[in-house]
């Protein structure tokens, strides 16, 4: 009786081996230290009131970035283990990882890096600046925003619990069936994978809706779509992709979970299931997903390059058309992930050509940035260093992408390390460098002081050098025939030296990460020297720089009125003032714990589904429904800031900054 109450939970799921034990110890130790510290310094009330229940997009953004950074460290730890194994495991040496554990690590690495690092950083940065840039006080639905964040956290929590109790999927980051079906992966690992990304994915979907409504409905007066900053356009493109692509992920994972929990046959190898259907569906989400990640990075670079070159962005309109073209085209290329499926020459030709066509708008963007820099008075602050790192590495990644788009070549290098090098080239060189650039660029606006420049540049240098050292050998290995996800190879192949070089490169990236942490710590320590008193440290162009740093909770005491692109730049150069007229009353959302509760209940639901504890799943759903119903019919969810109060706050924050 008692056993059935706990589903399929058993004691042996705690112990996996000494390597994992180290990870478990680090995780439990970290969490306990954090909890003890919070209790010792009596910070729980502060944490709850100021952060956890906040509806302020900027604070939600900061929380996203903190969680994503922790996950980045974990995902990077996974990467180091993979690299070390591959550097060691040749011939008689088996390395230090068991094959099953190795498989779990590469699955966790990919899943964490895409869903919990890249998506987390993206939503974090968008939350930080999008409302400010649009001249709005908040996103359209603040509570939904907070709920999305906690769904993301629920996904993160589930993925990490798998390290402590149970196992993670050993199926690759997209869990292709029939391997991911019950017949071949009966344990809880695939279920951990499935439910953690299902829950985080729903959070992303809701964020997508939220940001689209924010962009289309909450822009400053006078800011027509074609006067919007390019970053806002890039977010619009990305969020359109989110609302079109993430439902497919939700549906596909739902079908896989039906197969695994109810014994259905959507994707099984027997009774008529069709595994290739899963692969089509998951890439119909998966390809747009990479553009979901890269478009905001393009937007960030567009802002940074224009600001730091002291010039208007070259070709604003072509930038917008290019973004929208990529948004549409990214839907028509998914089959290039499996040219070897056997769809036939015509199908492959179509998808190959569409893939190459995407290089055109992307190329337009790169040239626009370069022309923006041309004859500009360029100031090489850290964000600009990230841009240059991006411009070189991303173009290499794009070029290898065009190579892979040729079906005949793809057949040769399919599933080889050449592919692995290609997508790391675009995702690290594009997405990661972009987000780091955006982080350094907007950091002063949120925290009121700049990041230390020299440490930041040291970090960029290590990242670029380390990146090239890691992945150029991987390209070469791919051409030599090394397949992806290898945990052991024969010494006669002559691969080991290249794997060792690649491992050294990873350590160099690690040094870059150390520099970034040092930069953050040092900047916090020296925050008074680095303080941004002007609110406009880079001599910026867009509305976020028109308010004091750190930006006040309500963003704008008086809402701006815009007449031109680069509204703040024009206003500074003697154009029409963006703030004028009298102050007026406005409302702000009250703090709410609803997001926290929904996140907690949904995490509980996910855990119950993974371990087949049905009563707990029902209980969790009842919890979600009750929370939602109670909140939906609350009438007083906002408070009013009066015009006098707005004026007083505005004077105070301007005085504090000056």
């Amino acid at each position: 009786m008692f056993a059935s109450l706990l589903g399929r939970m058993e004691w042996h799921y705690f112990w996996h081996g000494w390597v994992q034990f180290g990870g478990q110890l680090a995780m439990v130790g970290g969490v306990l230290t954090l909890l003890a510290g919070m209790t010792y310094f009596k910070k729980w009330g502060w944490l709850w009131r100021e952060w956890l229940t906040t509806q302020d997009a900027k604070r939600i953004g900061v929380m996203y970035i903190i969680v994503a950074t922790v996950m980045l460290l974990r995902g990077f730890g996974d990467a180091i283990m993979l690299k070390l194994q591959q550097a060691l495991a040749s011939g008689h040496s088996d390395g230090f990882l068991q094959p099953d554990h190795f498989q779990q690590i590469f699955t966790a690495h990919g899943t964490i890096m895409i869903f919990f690092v890249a998506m987390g950083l993206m939503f974090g940065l968008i939350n930080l600046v999008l409302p400010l840039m649009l001249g709005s006080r908040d996103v359209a639905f603040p509570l939904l925003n907070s709920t999305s964040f906690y769904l993301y956290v629920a996904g993160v929590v589930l993925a990490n619990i798998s390290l402590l109790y149970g196992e993670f999927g050993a199926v690759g980051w997209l869990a292709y069936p029939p391997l991911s079906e019950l017949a071949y992966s009966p344990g809880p690992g695939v279920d951990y994978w499935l439910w953690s990304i299902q829950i985080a994915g729903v959070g992303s979907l809701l964020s997508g809706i939220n940001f689209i409504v924010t962009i289309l409905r909450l822009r400053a007066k006078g800011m027509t779509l074609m006067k919007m900053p390019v970053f806002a356009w890039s977010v619009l493109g990305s969020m359109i992709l989110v609302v079109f692509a993430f439902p497919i992920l939700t549906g596909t994972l739902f079908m896989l979970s039906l197969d695994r929990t109810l014994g259905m046959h959507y994707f099984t190898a027997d009774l008529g299931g069709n595994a290739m259907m899963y692969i089509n569906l998951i890439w119909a989400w998966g390809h747009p997903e990479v553009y979901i990640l890269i478009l905001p990075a393009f937007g960030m670079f567009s802002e940074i390059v224009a600001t730091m070159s002291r010039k208007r962005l070259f070709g604003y309109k072509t930038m917008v058309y290019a973004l929208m073209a990529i948004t549409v085209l990214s839907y028509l290329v998914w089959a290039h992930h499996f040219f070897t499926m056997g769809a036939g020459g015509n199908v492959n030709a179509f998808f190959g050509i569409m893939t190459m066509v995407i290089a055109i708008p992307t190329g337009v963007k790169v040239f626009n940035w370069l022309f923006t820099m041309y004859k500009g008075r360029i100031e090489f602050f850290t964000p600009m260093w990230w841009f240059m790192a991006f411009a070189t590495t991303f173009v290499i990644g794009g070029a290898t992408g065009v190579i892979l788009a040729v079906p005949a070549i793809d057949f040769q290098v399919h599933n080889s390390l050449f592919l692995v090098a290609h997508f790391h080239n675009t995702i690290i060189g594009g997405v990661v460098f972009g987000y780091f650039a955006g982080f350094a660029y907007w950091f002063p606006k949120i925290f009121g002081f700049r990041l230390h420049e020299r440490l930041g540049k040291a970090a960029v240098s290590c990242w670029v050098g380390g990146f090239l050292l890691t992945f150029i050998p991987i390209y070469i290995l791919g051409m030599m025939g090394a397949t992806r996800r290898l945990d052991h190879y024969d010494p006669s192949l002559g691969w080991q030296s290249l794997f060792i070089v690649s491992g050294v490169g990873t350590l160099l990236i690690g040094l870059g990460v150390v520099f970034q942490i040092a930069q953050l710590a040092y900047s916090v320590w020296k925050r008074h020297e680095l303080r941004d008193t002007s609110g406009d440290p880079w001599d910026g162009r867009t509305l976020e720089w028109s308010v004091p740093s750190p930006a006040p909770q309500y963003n704008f005491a008086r809402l701006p009125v815009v007449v031109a692109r680069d509204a703040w730049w024009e206003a500074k150069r003697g154009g029409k003032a963006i703030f004028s007229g009298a102050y007026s009353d406005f409302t702000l959302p009250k703090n709410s714990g609803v997001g926290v509760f929904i996140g907690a209940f949904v995490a509980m639901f996910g855990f119950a589904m993974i371990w087949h504890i049905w009563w707990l799943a029902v209980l969790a759903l009842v919890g979600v429904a009750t929370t939602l119903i109670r909140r939906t019919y609350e009438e007083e969810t906002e408070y009013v800031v009066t015009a006098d109060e707005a004026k007083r706050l505005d004077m105070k924050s301007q005085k504090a900054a000056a």
Partner: protein
Amino acid sequence: MKQVIKSTQSVEASPAIFGFWLYLMTDCLVFASLFASFVVLRGQTAGGVGSKEIFSLPFVFLETMVLLVSSLTSGMALLAAQRQKRQHTLMWLTATALLGMLFLGLELYEFSSLVQEGHSWTQSAFLSSYFGLVGTHGIHIAIGLIWLFATMLFIYKRGLTHRLMQRLTMFILFWHFLDIVWVCIFTIVYLIGVI
């Protein structure tokens, strides 16, 4: 933005309703994935029954009528609410709830008789995709009913406040949306399946 909802703009034009429309489109895509899978797998009966053997059009027609009429009554409820007639609104919503429950009952009856005849979702990919698609619609109806009960309770207690009008509008959009999805299910699953 919030002042705008309260005063000048109508409920239908508020950002919340626009956002809800976007949500409905995403849900539509979840269904699209399930429909696509059903169409791919409909022939994969693994030697078992196909759609011709198990679907009864008159029964499904009855289900369809029940759901269509419930859509009509929900629309009447919204019209009554817009004229601030609380009693009428509640009456029409009660009719919607009863029809919704009847629909759900009919669907559960259909499912249970299929399972009893040995045609459960574990038998073939065709049956999996059938139960998966139609069942997902059923789950939506069930969630809609819970939402409807909550809406009715609050309208009963508080009257048709601005906030409740907005929630009611959303619910009715949701209910019409489920109706449209059902029309697609009726056509693609049942009608094409039997012909």
